[in-house]
Protein backbone atom coordinates (compact mmCIF):
# COMPACT_ATOMS: atom_id res chain seq x y z
CA UNK A 1 0.00 0.00 0.00
CA UNK A 2 1.45 3.37 -0.97
CA UNK A 3 1.14 6.35 1.30
CA UNK A 4 0.69 9.80 -0.18
CA UNK A 5 4.00 11.63 0.01
CA UNK A 6 3.63 14.29 2.70
CA UNK A 7 6.33 16.49 1.21
CA UNK A 8 6.24 19.27 -1.34
CA UNK A 9 9.31 20.60 -3.08
CA UNK A 10 9.23 24.01 -4.76
CA UNK A 11 12.39 25.01 -6.62
CA UNK A 12 12.86 28.57 -7.86
CA UNK A 13 15.71 30.63 -9.21
CA UNK A 14 16.87 33.55 -7.09
CA UNK A 15 19.42 36.24 -7.64
CA UNK A 16 22.82 35.40 -9.05
CA UNK A 17 23.33 31.70 -9.62
CA UNK A 18 21.48 30.81 -6.44
CA UNK A 19 18.38 28.61 -6.25
CA UNK A 20 15.88 28.31 -3.45
CA UNK A 21 14.50 24.90 -2.54
CA UNK A 22 11.37 25.40 -0.48
CA UNK A 23 10.22 22.28 1.37
CA UNK A 24 6.79 21.76 2.96
CA UNK A 25 5.64 18.81 5.05
CA UNK A 26 7.51 15.98 6.72
CA UNK A 27 10.96 14.70 5.75
CA UNK A 28 11.43 11.11 6.83
CA UNK A 29 12.70 7.79 5.48
CA UNK A 30 9.75 7.65 3.07
CA UNK A 31 9.74 11.20 1.75
CA UNK A 32 13.45 12.08 1.81
CA UNK A 33 14.22 10.44 -1.58
CA UNK A 34 12.03 13.09 -3.24
CA UNK A 35 14.06 15.84 -1.56
CA UNK A 36 17.30 14.10 -2.47
CA UNK A 37 16.23 13.90 -6.12
CA UNK A 38 15.30 17.60 -6.24
CA UNK A 39 18.62 18.71 -4.76
CA UNK A 40 20.54 16.21 -6.88
CA UNK A 41 18.86 17.46 -10.07
CA UNK A 42 19.93 21.03 -9.34
CA UNK A 43 23.52 20.02 -8.65
CA UNK A 44 23.59 17.90 -11.81
CA UNK A 45 22.54 21.05 -13.71
CA UNK A 46 25.50 22.95 -12.27
CA UNK A 47 23.72 24.80 -9.46
CA UNK A 48 26.11 24.89 -6.53
CA UNK A 49 24.66 27.66 -4.35
CA UNK A 50 21.46 26.65 -2.62
CA UNK A 51 19.14 28.04 -0.01
CA UNK A 52 16.97 25.30 1.45
CA UNK A 53 13.94 26.79 3.15
CA UNK A 54 12.65 24.60 5.99
CA UNK A 55 10.07 27.07 7.31
CA UNK A 56 7.13 24.90 6.26
CA UNK A 57 8.74 21.63 7.37
CA UNK A 58 6.94 20.17 10.36
CA UNK A 59 9.25 17.20 10.95
CA UNK A 60 12.69 16.02 9.91
CA UNK A 61 14.60 12.89 10.90
CA UNK A 62 18.11 11.58 10.34
CA UNK A 63 17.40 10.55 6.75
CA UNK A 64 16.37 14.13 5.99
CA UNK A 65 19.49 15.44 7.70
CA UNK A 66 21.48 12.94 5.64
CA UNK A 67 20.05 14.34 2.42
CA UNK A 68 21.03 17.87 3.44
CA UNK A 69 24.55 16.75 4.42
CA UNK A 70 24.91 14.86 1.15
CA UNK A 71 23.85 17.93 -0.83
CA UNK A 72 26.26 20.14 1.06
CA UNK A 73 29.16 17.78 0.43
CA UNK A 74 28.40 17.69 -3.30
CA UNK A 75 28.19 21.47 -3.76
CA UNK A 76 31.33 22.02 -1.70
CA UNK A 77 33.24 19.91 -4.21
CA UNK A 78 32.42 22.67 -6.71
CA UNK A 79 33.10 25.58 -4.40
CA UNK A 80 29.43 26.06 -3.57
CA UNK A 81 27.46 26.14 -0.37
CA UNK A 82 24.08 25.40 1.19
CA UNK A 83 22.37 27.75 3.62
CA UNK A 84 19.22 26.84 5.50
CA UNK A 85 16.21 28.86 6.58
CA UNK A 86 14.79 27.55 9.84
CA UNK A 87 13.05 29.18 12.77
CA UNK A 88 11.03 26.20 14.03
CA UNK A 89 12.51 25.55 17.52
CA UNK A 90 11.97 21.78 17.39
CA UNK A 91 13.74 21.42 14.05
CA UNK A 92 16.44 23.85 15.05
CA UNK A 93 16.99 21.73 18.17
CA UNK A 94 17.77 18.70 15.99
CA UNK A 95 20.46 20.68 14.17
CA UNK A 96 21.80 21.84 17.52
CA UNK A 97 22.09 18.44 19.21
CA UNK A 98 23.60 16.78 16.14
CA UNK A 99 26.17 19.55 15.81
CA UNK A 100 25.02 20.36 12.27
CA UNK A 101 24.73 24.04 13.21
CA UNK A 102 28.50 24.05 12.79
CA UNK A 103 28.47 22.95 9.16
CA UNK A 104 25.33 24.68 7.84
CA UNK A 105 24.60 28.35 7.81
CA UNK A 106 21.14 28.62 9.40
CA UNK A 107 19.18 31.84 8.93
CA UNK A 108 15.80 33.26 9.85
CA UNK A 109 14.80 34.39 6.35
CA UNK A 110 15.47 33.55 2.71
CA UNK A 111 16.89 37.03 2.18
CA UNK A 112 19.44 36.61 4.96
CA UNK A 113 20.37 33.12 3.74
CA UNK A 114 20.85 34.36 0.15
CA UNK A 115 22.88 37.40 1.17
CA UNK A 116 25.23 35.11 3.09
CA UNK A 117 25.72 32.98 -0.03
CA UNK A 118 26.49 35.64 -2.61
Amino acid at each position, binding site marked *: MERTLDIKVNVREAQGDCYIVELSGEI*DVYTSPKVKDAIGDLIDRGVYNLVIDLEKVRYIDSTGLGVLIGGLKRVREHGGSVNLVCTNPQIRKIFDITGLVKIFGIFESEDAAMKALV
Partner: protein
Amino acid sequence: MTQPLPSTDDIDIVDLRIPCRAEWVALARLSVAAVASRLNFSIDEIEDIKLAVAEACTNAIQHAHGSPYIEIKCEAMPGALRLSVRDYGHGTRPEHIRSRDLTDERVGGLGVFLIRSLMDEVDYQVHPDQGTLLIMVKRLAN
Protein backbone atom coordinates in the same frame (compact mmCIF):
# COMPACT_ATOMS: atom_id res chain seq x y z
CA MET B 1 21.06 7.14 37.35
CA THR B 2 18.50 4.54 36.31
CA GLN B 3 15.39 4.67 38.49
CA PRO B 4 13.13 1.67 39.12
CA LEU B 5 9.98 1.58 37.00
CA PRO B 6 6.50 0.95 38.52
CA SER B 7 5.09 -2.52 38.98
CA THR B 8 3.21 -4.09 36.07
CA ASP B 9 -0.14 -3.29 37.75
CA ASP B 10 0.44 0.37 36.97
CA ILE B 11 1.39 -0.13 33.33
CA ASP B 12 -0.95 0.26 30.36
CA ILE B 13 0.36 -1.52 27.28
CA VAL B 14 -0.31 -0.56 23.67
CA ASP B 15 1.10 -2.88 21.01
CA LEU B 16 1.59 -1.96 17.37
CA ARG B 17 2.93 -4.04 14.52
CA ILE B 18 3.82 -2.38 11.23
CA PRO B 19 5.25 -3.75 7.99
CA CYS B 20 9.01 -3.22 7.85
CA ARG B 21 8.68 -0.58 5.14
CA ALA B 22 9.30 3.16 4.99
CA GLU B 23 5.72 4.20 4.27
CA TRP B 24 4.58 2.89 7.68
CA VAL B 25 6.99 4.82 9.88
CA ALA B 26 4.70 7.86 10.02
CA LEU B 27 1.94 5.70 11.47
CA ALA B 28 4.29 4.41 14.17
CA ARG B 29 5.44 7.85 15.26
CA LEU B 30 1.92 9.31 15.28
CA SER B 31 0.57 6.36 17.27
CA VAL B 32 3.32 6.61 19.85
CA ALA B 33 2.77 10.37 20.06
CA ALA B 34 -0.89 9.71 20.87
CA VAL B 35 0.13 7.41 23.72
CA ALA B 36 2.69 9.93 24.99
CA SER B 37 0.12 12.71 24.98
CA ARG B 38 -1.98 10.76 27.48
CA LEU B 39 0.93 10.88 29.94
CA ASN B 40 1.11 14.66 30.07
CA PHE B 41 4.42 14.93 28.30
CA SER B 42 5.07 18.41 26.96
CA ILE B 43 4.81 19.09 23.24
CA ASP B 44 8.61 19.22 23.02
CA GLU B 45 8.93 15.89 24.83
CA ILE B 46 6.34 14.31 22.54
CA GLU B 47 8.33 15.52 19.54
CA ASP B 48 11.45 13.91 21.06
CA ILE B 49 9.59 10.61 21.53
CA LYS B 50 8.19 10.72 17.99
CA LEU B 51 11.64 11.23 16.54
CA ALA B 52 13.21 8.51 18.68
CA VAL B 53 10.65 5.87 17.70
CA ALA B 54 10.87 6.89 14.04
CA GLU B 55 14.66 6.58 14.14
CA ALA B 56 14.34 3.13 15.69
CA CYS B 57 11.93 2.02 12.96
CA THR B 58 14.14 3.56 10.26
CA ASN B 59 17.14 1.64 11.60
CA ALA B 60 15.13 -1.57 11.41
CA ILE B 61 14.05 -0.85 7.83
CA GLN B 62 17.57 0.00 6.72
CA HIS B 63 19.50 -2.69 8.58
CA ALA B 64 17.19 -5.54 9.65
CA HIS B 65 17.22 -7.32 6.34
CA GLY B 66 14.56 -9.95 6.09
CA SER B 67 12.36 -8.72 8.92
CA PRO B 68 8.73 -8.86 7.76
CA TYR B 69 7.50 -6.43 10.36
CA ILE B 70 8.45 -4.24 13.28
CA GLU B 71 6.79 -4.55 16.68
CA ILE B 72 6.42 -1.45 18.81
CA LYS B 73 5.37 -1.89 22.43
CA CYS B 74 4.35 1.19 24.39
CA GLU B 75 4.24 0.82 28.17
CA ALA B 76 2.57 3.84 29.69
CA MET B 77 3.19 4.15 33.41
CA PRO B 78 3.04 6.89 36.00
CA GLY B 79 5.83 9.27 35.16
CA ALA B 80 7.37 7.42 32.26
CA LEU B 81 6.88 5.87 28.85
CA ARG B 82 8.87 2.78 27.91
CA LEU B 83 9.08 1.90 24.23
CA SER B 84 10.33 -1.41 22.86
CA VAL B 85 11.04 -1.61 19.14
CA ARG B 86 11.68 -5.13 17.89
CA ASP B 87 12.64 -6.40 14.46
CA TYR B 88 13.31 -9.92 13.27
CA GLY B 89 16.04 -9.29 10.73
CA HIS B 90 19.55 -10.63 10.68
CA GLY B 91 20.53 -8.05 13.27
CA THR B 92 23.33 -5.57 13.36
CA ARG B 93 26.34 -6.63 15.38
CA PRO B 94 26.45 -4.79 18.73
CA GLU B 95 29.79 -3.19 17.93
CA HIS B 96 28.23 -1.62 14.84
CA ILE B 97 25.52 0.18 16.82
CA ARG B 98 27.16 3.43 17.71
CA SER B 99 26.58 7.11 17.55
CA ARG B 100 28.41 9.21 15.05
CA ASP B 101 31.39 11.36 15.78
CA LEU B 102 29.96 14.88 15.53
CA THR B 103 33.15 16.19 13.97
CA ASP B 104 32.55 13.84 11.07
CA GLU B 105 30.28 15.06 8.27
CA ARG B 106 29.27 11.60 7.14
CA VAL B 107 25.62 10.63 7.15
CA GLY B 108 25.53 7.34 9.08
CA GLY B 109 25.03 7.06 12.83
CA LEU B 110 22.83 10.13 13.22
CA GLY B 111 19.77 8.06 14.07
CA VAL B 112 21.43 6.25 16.98
CA PHE B 113 22.91 9.52 18.17
CA LEU B 114 19.49 11.18 18.16
CA ILE B 115 17.88 8.29 20.05
CA ARG B 116 20.54 8.43 22.74
CA SER B 117 20.25 12.21 22.97
CA LEU B 118 16.47 12.41 23.16
CA MET B 119 15.59 9.51 25.45
CA ASP B 120 16.52 9.05 29.12
CA GLU B 121 17.44 5.36 28.90
CA VAL B 122 18.43 3.34 25.83
CA ASP B 123 19.32 -0.32 25.68
CA TYR B 124 20.06 -2.37 22.56
CA GLN B 125 19.73 -6.14 22.69
CA VAL B 126 21.09 -7.67 19.52
CA HIS B 127 20.52 -11.30 18.75
CA PRO B 128 22.44 -12.34 15.65
CA ASP B 129 20.07 -13.78 13.04
CA GLN B 130 17.10 -13.19 15.36
CA GLY B 131 16.78 -9.44 15.20
CA THR B 132 17.27 -6.47 17.44
CA LEU B 133 15.32 -5.20 20.44
CA LEU B 134 15.70 -1.56 21.35
CA ILE B 135 14.25 -0.46 24.68
CA MET B 136 13.99 3.26 25.42
CA VAL B 137 12.50 5.13 28.34
CA LYS B 138 11.38 8.74 28.51
CA ARG B 139 10.52 10.12 31.92
CA LEU B 140 8.26 13.04 32.68
CA ALA B 141 10.33 16.05 33.59
CA ASN B 142 8.33 16.73 36.75
